């Protein structure tokens, strides 16, 4: 009984802080105020102030975690909405997504190996370019550390969004199709929000690519890891 009330209290607290921080972000919208960062910091401060351990926090936290599965299932909805555009551009999308998926996973593995990064970290790096709920599933499946993967996914996303526009200008990738698919494959949801600067076609391309990368990544992630014997 006590467990249940602790769980409910923690869930309510997390949701309340999240709502407050989202409002703050909408109001000021500085990049440093992204809700995931501010909410996390606020909750950590609360936990430290009230001497709550992480294990106690997770009594409620695990319920929030368990919503990741339904979130992945819900991805069917945007995919369904974009079925027409997916069918229309099926060849470049599939080709681009495969190119992005494999260049991402293999380059991640190789660079991690070159820079001498620990094995369990390498496994957490593999799904870094895939939208977070699916990346967590993949990381768990291949033996990575899910919480690390969450952070890597964010860093990878930001790096693609920051580097993307300049690089694509330099190497003269001009097609809106190419830009959209590249943003979606490299930077998932962050890339899709960046794609808004290039117009609607780029946004839909990015969003479709992001979902396809997630689907194909969950199939090929374990295979790539197995092939490279990491």
């Amino acid at each position: 009984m006590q467990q249940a009330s602790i769980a409910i209290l923690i869930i309510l607290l997390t949701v309340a802080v999240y709502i407050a921080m989202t409002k703050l972000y909408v109001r000021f919208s500085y990049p440093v105020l992204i809700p995931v960062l501010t909410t996390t910091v606020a909750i950590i401060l609360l936990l430290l102030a009230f001497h709550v351990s992480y294990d106690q926090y997770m009594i409620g936290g695990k319920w929030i975690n368990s919503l990741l599965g339904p979130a992945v299932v819900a991805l069917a909805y945007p995919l369904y909405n974009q079925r027409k555009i997916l069918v229309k551009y099926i060849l470049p999308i599939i080709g681009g997504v495969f190119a992005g998926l494999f260049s991402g996973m293999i380059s991640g593995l190789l660079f991690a190996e070159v820079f001498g990064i620990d094995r369990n970290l390498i496994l957490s790096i593999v799904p870094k370019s895939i939208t977070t709920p699916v990346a967590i599933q993949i990381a768990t499946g291949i033996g990575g550390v899910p919480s690390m993967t969450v952070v890597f996914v964010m860093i990878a996303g930001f790096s693609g969004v920051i580097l993307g526009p300049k690089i694509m200008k330099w190497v003269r990738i001009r097609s809106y199709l190419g830009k959209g698919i590249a943003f979606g494959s490299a930077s998932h949801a962050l890339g899709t929000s960046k794609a808004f600067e290039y117009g609607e076609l780029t946004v839909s391309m990015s969003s479709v690519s992001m979902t396809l990368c997630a689907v194909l990544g969950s199939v090929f992630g374990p295979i790539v890891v197995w092939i490279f014997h990491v």
Partner: protein
Amino acid sequence: MLRFIMQFVIILATLAAGNALSSVFHLPIPGSILGMFLLLLGLLTGVVKLRWVEGVANSHLRHMTLLFIPPVVGLLLNWGAVHIQLWKVLLVLSLSSLCILLGTGYSVELYEKRKRRRNG
């Protein structure tokens, strides 16, 4: 509210079916991805109506950030035990993102050029 719960039950049922498929056939694909396929299939065949899942799917995806809070809290609380060299990780992730941008961008650009040549 009841509508919302019903919609969520549909999503959960699809997830359960996906998980069952994954474990019964020992598939390497996570149950949630299979569930996504099942839901997509349902929507495409018209077995599941869009308005049955629309509301809940939309709000679930919009507030996905909430779901990443517990793992990140855990990571930051245990930061002392994490032995990573941040600059290495930043470098690896940025270089790899660069590879994706170039690999994807070039292959699509190449495809479009060839298509234009064939049509022109």
